[in-house]
């Protein structure tokens, strides 16, 4: 072609929902690098800028370019279905990462269980706080799958295991400034014993500054420490765990997302099929919304395992 794709390797398309979100962009970069490394040609990721309709067009445009497989981070699990169906009609295998598709024929959903992450965070937080007091939950918008799932997992577990704890929940819109606004108002007016951050990559730096201003940024064991647990496992969060400011962090399997995206793309090109059951890499393949999902394990990070090389936050450094 005119752009000089003299590479005869099969082309793979990537459709991203957004690119201005740190977690997604780390995810995108990892997957692109892994697929390229595996000897395939990855087209530059398309960016739907948060618009589900645009994402359908992006997938359709990728299909027009005769890609052999499509990897997507859907904007919305339901709204992506027409795109999956279009890929099915064109015979292009469709792989989703992080967010699943709730319909169509998906070759594999590569994901971690966000409900389980919320639950793990709840268990860590409840145990560290001793099951009493007031917890400030800074959650992601429920219009996003990770937002709703982490919130659900956290709240269900709280109700079941730590009924003595009161929860104040504030929507952060996955927005750093809004997080600080909301948290500041609550922390300044209410006695808070614990904080749950649904995403450390968005929220932690601002919360740290805020707590420092309130003289509440203290490591475990020191006076004024607020029990804090977060999800994501970004590098600054691992540092905070190391120093004891964060009691625990649930690290997403971002390195595994990248690795197994490449793995499943290769498998799809070969025509391999998978069954429900344990995978060959310490995870469970389950049926999820009518398709197969490889539930990659997320890791609960505490001081004990914070230096684990396989954590993506450590690799990113």
């Amino acid at each position, binding site marked *: 072609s005119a752009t000089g794709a003299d590479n005869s390797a099969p082309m793979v398309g990537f459709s*991203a929902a957004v690119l201005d979100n740190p977690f997604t962009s780390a995810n995108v970069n990892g997957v692109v690098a892994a697929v390229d490394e595996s000897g395939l040609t990855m087209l*530059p990721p398309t960016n739907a800028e948060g618009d589900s309709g645009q994402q359908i*067009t992006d997938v359709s445009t990728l299909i027009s*370019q005769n890609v052999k497989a499509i990897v997507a981070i859907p904007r919305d699990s*339901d709204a992506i279905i027409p795109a999956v169906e279009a890929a099915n009609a064109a015979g292009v295998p469709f792989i989703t990462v992080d967010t699943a598709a709730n319909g169509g024929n998906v070759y594999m959903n590569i994901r971690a269980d966000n409900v389980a992450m919320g639950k793990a965070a709840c268990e860590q937080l409840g145990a560290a706080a001793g099951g009493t007091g007031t917890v400030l939950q800074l959650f992601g918008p429920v*219009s996003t799958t990770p937002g709703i799932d982490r919130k659900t997992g956290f709240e269900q577990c709280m109700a079941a295991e730590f009924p003595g704890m009161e929860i104040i929940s504030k929507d952060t819109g996955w927005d750093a400034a809004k997080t600080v606004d909301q948290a500041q108002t609550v922390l300044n007016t209410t006695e808070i014993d614990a904080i749950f951050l649904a995403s450390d990559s968005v929220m932690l730096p601002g919360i740290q500054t805020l707590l420092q201003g309130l003289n509440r940024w203290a490591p475990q064991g020191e006076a004024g420490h607020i029990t804090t647990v977060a999800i994501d496992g970004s590098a600054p969060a691992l540092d905070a765990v190391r120093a004891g400011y964060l009691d625990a962090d649930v690290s997403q399997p971002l390195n595994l997302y990248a690795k197994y995206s490449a793995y499943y793309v290769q498998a799809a090109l070969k025509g391999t099929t998978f069954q429900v059951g344990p995978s060959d890499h310490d995870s469970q393949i389950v049926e999820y919304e009518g398709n197969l999902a490889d539930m990659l394990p997320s890791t609960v990070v505490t001081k004990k395992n914070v230096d684990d090389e396989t954590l993506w936050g450590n690799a990113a450094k």
Partner: protein
Amino acid sequence: MTSTILQAGTRPRAIRMSPAVRRELALVPVIIAALIVGTILSPTFLTANNLLNNVLVNSSVLGIVVVAESVILISGYFDLSLESIVGLAPMVAVWLVLPSSLGGSGLGIPSWLAIVACFAVSAIIGAINGLLVTKLKLNAFIVTLAMLTLLRGVTTGISGGQTLSRLPAEFLFLGSARPFGISIQIWIFVVVVIVVAAFMQNHPIGRKVYALGGNQAAAASAGIKTTKLTIAVFVFGALLSALAGLMLTGRIASVTSDQGNGLIFTVFAAAVIGGISLNGGQGTIFGAFCGVLLLGIIQNILTLSRVPSYWIAAIYGLVILCALIFNYLAGARPRRNTQRA
């Protein structure tokens, strides 16, 4: 010896295109240039499949809102809340239909009735906007901005932030039907453009909208009922946006609670690049259609080309800025645009 008056009448004057036509045609060479660039950059660009299914289908929803906004802009007003109607209208309709187990109201209202209801709600919103800007003479920008915030909030409130899916067939029809092998979205878009363009160009009501936007006082003194007409224009815009919302829902086979968010910026860009003046009274629906096409083509080229993804948005903004400057250099710029936004 002749008087000045006679002179003015007889002074030689080249055969000239009306400024409106000139402004419209200004975009045609740009579109052709974009087509050539696209063809060079990507072999898949100039195929019927790409142009129809990627460029046009993707432009249809945007395009219908652009038509709606253009009519409102021509009337001399502004409506930012149209993007929130794109989200709210289908949310209301689907919510009325779906059982509560799927996030709906559980009222089990038949689809056709729910669709009628969502158009009715949209019409009421348009009428409220129209009343606030005419009767209370509030500034349209700020009123519709507040309305936008309110309606987005209501959409989130109704759905509890969830996406509603598993829609009845009536809702999917607008996304999946392909009469004569071409998506129904394109058919609707083209029909809307042709009908509204003909109406605005040649129907007395359309001409009155131009008069209203060009000089409200003059329109009023010519016996045009400006208040009623303004309200009608807002209602019309809201109804078209509701249609666009239902079409978008048909495409994505669901209603998301952020549906339409951010759309209005692109709507304004397309309308203005297409020659619609933000000062009212100027521009044509055909011009706006060209603006939509151009943006759709650029978007498509950027997707097909191998521009690094993180820079696509920047390039898109740059291209729009260049298109505006080009519009100016082509003499297509609305004349009295000295100051006011």
